[in-house]
C-alpha cells in the first residue's frame, strides 16, 4: 500500500518571486511533478520552524521554502 500513497510536498513560496516564477512556469507549460503543492506567503520571513514542523506533522513528506 505504501508505494501507492502519493508524496505530499509543500512549497511555501513568496508571492513576489517564487510564486510568480511558478506562474511563469505555468504560462510556459513547463511540467513538474504534481506532488508539489504551493502555498503562497507574503515573504519567506513569515515561515518559521513551527510552520515547517507543523507541515510535517500534518503529513507532508517534504517542505520547500522559496523566495
Amino acid at each position, binding site marked *: 500500500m505504501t508505494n501507492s500513497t*502519493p508524496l*505530499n510536498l*509543500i512549497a511555501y513560496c513568496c*508571492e*513576489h*518571486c*517564487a*510564486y*510568480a*516564477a*511558478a*506562474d*511563469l*512556469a*505555468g*504560462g*510556459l*507549460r*513547463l*511540467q*513538474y*511533478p*504534481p*506532488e508539489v*503543492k*504551493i*502555498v*503562497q*506567503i*507574503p*515573504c519567506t*520571513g*513569515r*515561515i*518559521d520552524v*513551527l*510552520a515547517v514542523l*507543523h*507541515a510535517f*506533522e*500534518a*503529513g*507532508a513528506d517534504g517542505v520547500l521554502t522559496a523566495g
Partner: protein
Amino acid sequence: MVDLRRNQVRGSPAQAVMVVGGGISGMRAALDLADAGLKVYLVEQTPCLGGRVAQLGFMFPQHDCVLCRGTPDHGYGCTRPSISPAYLEHNQHPNIEVLTNTRIIDIEGQAGDFTVSLRQEPRYVDPERCISCGLCARVCPVELPDSYQQGMTRRKAIYKVAARAVPDAYVIDRGPYCDECGQCVEVCPTNAIDLHEPARLRHVEAGAIILALGFQVYDPTELEELGYGRFPNVLHAMQYERLASRSGPTEGVVIRPSDGQRPRSIAWLQCIGSRDQKNGYCSSICCMYATKEAMLAKQRLAGQVDCTIFIMDERAFNKEYSRYFATARERYGIRYVRCRVSGIHEDPATHDLILHYAEPDGTRHEERFEAVVLATGLQPPESARHLADLLEIELNEYGFCQTDKFTPLQTSRPGVFVCGAFSSPKEIAETIIDASGAAAEVMRLLNDQLNAHPYSREWPFVIAADGLPPERDVSGEAPRVGVFACTCGKTISEALDLRGLLQDVARWPDVEAAELLDFACLPEGLTELKEAIQKHNLNRVVVAGCSNRTHDALFQRTVRQVGLNPYLLEMVNLREQCSQVHRQHSAQANRKARELVRMAIGRVRAAQPVHKDKHPCLPVALVIGGGVAGMTAALAIADSGYRVHLVERSDALGGNLLNLYYVAEGYNPQRLLRDLVNRVRAHTHITVFTRTEVTRHWGHVGHFHALLRTSHPSGLVEETEIEHGVTIVATGARETHEHPLLELPGVITQRELEERIIHQPETVTGLQDVVMIQCVRPPGMPDYCSRVCCTNTIKNALRLKLFNPACRVIVLYKNIVTYGFREEYYTEARKRGILFLRYTDAEPPQVLSQDGRLLVRVRDLALDRTLDLPADLVTMSMSVAPSEGTAALARMLRVPLSSEGFFEEAQMKLRPMDFMREGIFLAGMAHYPKFLEESISHALAAAARALTLLSQGALHLGGIVAQVDPSKCVGCLTCTRTCPFAIPQVIQQEGRTGVGGLGGAAYIDPAQCQGCGTCTGECPASAIQLVNYTDEQVMLRSIGGLGRWLPTPQEVAR
C-alpha cells in the same frame, strides 16, 4: 474673427498627459502622474508594454531576476507592492489609459494645450475577452521567427509577445503570410477574434507630453570584419540575454547556435557600435552587462567555461559597481583583456572563432573561442527622427534627444519632456530617475490638475474614488462559503474534472454553494458570481481558476461590489499551478486540485475583514540639504502648490555648486546657482532655514515631526519643531581632502585647480608640465569610482591647453570613465595632445620632491618601463565621499547606508529615489556622486514621488500588517532585531502592558509595517500575528491542508 477658444482652454477641462513609449521609463512616468491624480494616456507602438527591459533575464549588479523585481516579462512593473501592483492585469490604475499598437500621426497646440492625433492599428484579438488559452496559436498554420526570442525560436502568426505580456492577450501579425484562413476565429472559445477589426483614429487633448522612446540595439551586421550574420557562433548581446534568461528559448542554458553544445570558452567584445568613428559616444551600460553575462555563463555552465572580456576601460561608475567588477574577476575568474579586437575569423570545420589581439604591452596573441558575444551599444530609437520632425523637437548629432544641462528632462519644445535612453544611453536606474523626474516637470506645469482625478487605495485594488456600496458586516455570521470553479474555456476543464471536484466540495463543511463558471473573468462570469453570492447569502468566496497574481484584484473588486470585504475572497491557482503543469498526471492533478481547494476553503473560513487606516497627508515637505538637489526638489514641490521647509547646515544655499565655476559642456553653473537661490528665497511656499540641522525626526508617512536646531551667528540657538508629510534627503557629498601628498607644495586637488583657473589664471597659464593623477582616495576609504572626476579632469586639462598649448598635460588613470556623450571630451583631449597613461593598483604612481621640483614616477605599461615625469603642478582627483554627518542622519531617519557610506535606496534599479521607509526620499549626491544634470533629475524624481503622496488628500495605511498582542509580549526585543525595516519598538503606553504587568510592550506602527511577517515567525511568545496570514490561516493542519474532511464516495461504498 479671432479664435479665443484656444487661449481659454487652459485650466477649464481636466487635462491629461500623454506618455509616449510603454517601456520601463514610460510606465514609471505614467504611474507617478496617475498617482498624483492626473489622467494619463500611455501610448505604445508595439502590441504590449515592457520595452527592452522585458527581454532581459537579470539585472546587474544584484542579479535580481527581472521576474520578481521588476518589469514586464510577465506583467507590468515590479510585483513589490510599493512599486506597482497597480499595473498587474485587471488592476490597472484608473487614471491610465493604455493604447498599444498606437502611433502619433499629428500634433498641434502648445504647452498646456496639445491636441494629438493617434492611429491605433488593429490587434484583431479583443484583450478584454482573450483568456490566453493558446488554442488559436495551436491551429494557426503560419510559423514565423519569434522576435521576442531574437529569432532563435518560432512563433505563429497569432501569438502572444511574451508569456506574461500586458495586455495579457494574443495578437495577430497580419503580414502577407497571414491568408485569413479563419481557423483561429473558429477555435476561440470566447469569440475574441475579429479579422475585420479596423484601425482607429483618435484625437486626444493633452497638457504635456513625455517622450520615453527608449533605444534600439546597434545592429552589428555592417561591421563585416566581426562576421555577425555569417558566423553562427557570433551573437549579439540581446541574443545572449535571451539565451541566459529562464524564459528564453533554452530555459537559461547557454548554448552555441552552430551545434547546440555548451560553449567551453566565450569572448565578449566591448564597444561594438560605441566609442568609434561613427558613434563617438559611450553606450554607458555595456561594461556592466557584459560582466553580468559572463557571470551568468559561469553560473549556468557550472564553471565549465572560460570567459574573457576584451575591454577598453572598465566603466563601473555607479553604486556597488566597482565591487561587482572585483567579484567578477576574483570570485568568478573572469578575464579582462585591455584591447579592442579588430576582426574575427572562423574555423569552418568547427565553427570556432579565432581572435587576434595584442596585449597592452604589444605582445600579439591568437586565441580560439567557441562563442563570441558582441557587446552592442545603444542607438536612438528607430522612430526618433520621424517623431522629432512631427513634434518639432531637436535631436543631437547622434539622433538622441537634445537637452540642456540644467534642464535635462526638457526638450527644445516647451511642454514636451523626455526621459530614459532617448536622451542619452543609460541604465535602468537612471531611466527610472528620469521618468519620475519628467513626471515632476509635468506636475509643475499642470499643477492645477493635481488630484483632478482622485482615486482610492483603500482596497488592495486601485479604483476611481467614486463609490462602492457599503460593506456588509459579516462578523456575527457563521462562514457561508461559495466555491466557484472556472473552466477557462477548456483550458482548465480539459485537464481537470471540475464537475467531480465540485461534487466533493459541495459536501465539505460550511460550503453553501459550489458552481461551475465558464469564464469567471468575463463580464458574464462576474455577473453570475455576484448573483450567486447574493442568492446564497455567501460571506466567504473561493474562486478556483487562474493565478491570483493576475486576477486577485478583479475578483476582490467584484466581491466588494456586492458588499463583501475583499479579504473574504480566496483564489485557487488551478490554471498556472495545476492544469498547465501536470498534463501527464491526470489523476494526481485532480487530487492536487482538491487539496488546493480544500486549503483555500480552510483559509477563507478563518479569514476576517481587513481594513486600512485612513490618514491625512500634511501638505508640507521637509527637504534636508540646500544644494542643487535640495533646491531643485524644493522648487518642484513648491511650484506644484505645496509648502516646503528647506534646511541647510551652512550659512548659504548652494552646496557644491558654490565651488563649480564651469562645466565640460560650457554652461555657467554660477548662473544656475543664482537662479536657484533667487527662486528659492523668493518663493512664498518655501521657508529656508540656514545654519540649521535636523536633530530629531519621528512619525510616519503623511505625518512626520522634526526638530530643527538653528545656530544664529550671534550664538543664539533656536529650536523649531515642524510637522510635515514627506521628507527628502539631499545632503550631498564632498570632495575628500585627506591625503599626505596634498601637503607637498605644488600638489593640489582637481577642485583647487578649477578655482585657480577661474580666480588666479595667472598661476596656471605659465605651467609647462602638469601631471594629473586619477582615482586617489584617502587612506582607509573604500574603493569605488567617484564618477565625475574623469570628466572634470579632462575639462580642466583642456582649459590648461587652451591657456597654453605648449603645456604638457599627462593624465595618469586606471579607467577613463567618460560615459555617454562625455566621451567626446576624452576624444577632444587626445586630439589636443593631452597624454593619457594607465597605471594599475599594483604599481600606483609615486610623487617625489627632488631639488624643489616635483617628480611623478610611474610605470608605463606600453613601454614596460618606469618613467620619471617632471611636474610644475600635480593635481589629484580625490574620491567623492558622503557628507559629514551622513551616518548620524541615517540613524536618525532609520534608513540604511551602502558599503560606500552613501544612503541606500529601497531598490537599486527600480526605486533609486525611494527609501524602504515610506514617505522619505533621496536626491542628489547623497545617493552617489553625480553630475549636475544627474543631481537635478534625481531631485525632480524625488519631488515627483513626494508629490504623489502630497497630492492625495488621504493615505490609506496598514491593512496586511503585523499586530502585537501586548498581553503576550515579554519585551524580549526579538522583533526589533529581526525586522528588516527597523519598525517594531518596545514602548511604554497606557493600556499596553506586557506579560506579568511588564512596563512596556512591542509596538508595530501599522503605517510603516511592510507586511513581510518576519517578526511573526521569530516572536518566541507568538505574540505577533500578521493580518490575513495568521497561524490559523497559514498552518496546514488548521486549514485542512493535507487532511481529509469527509470520506470519498468509494470509501463510503466500502
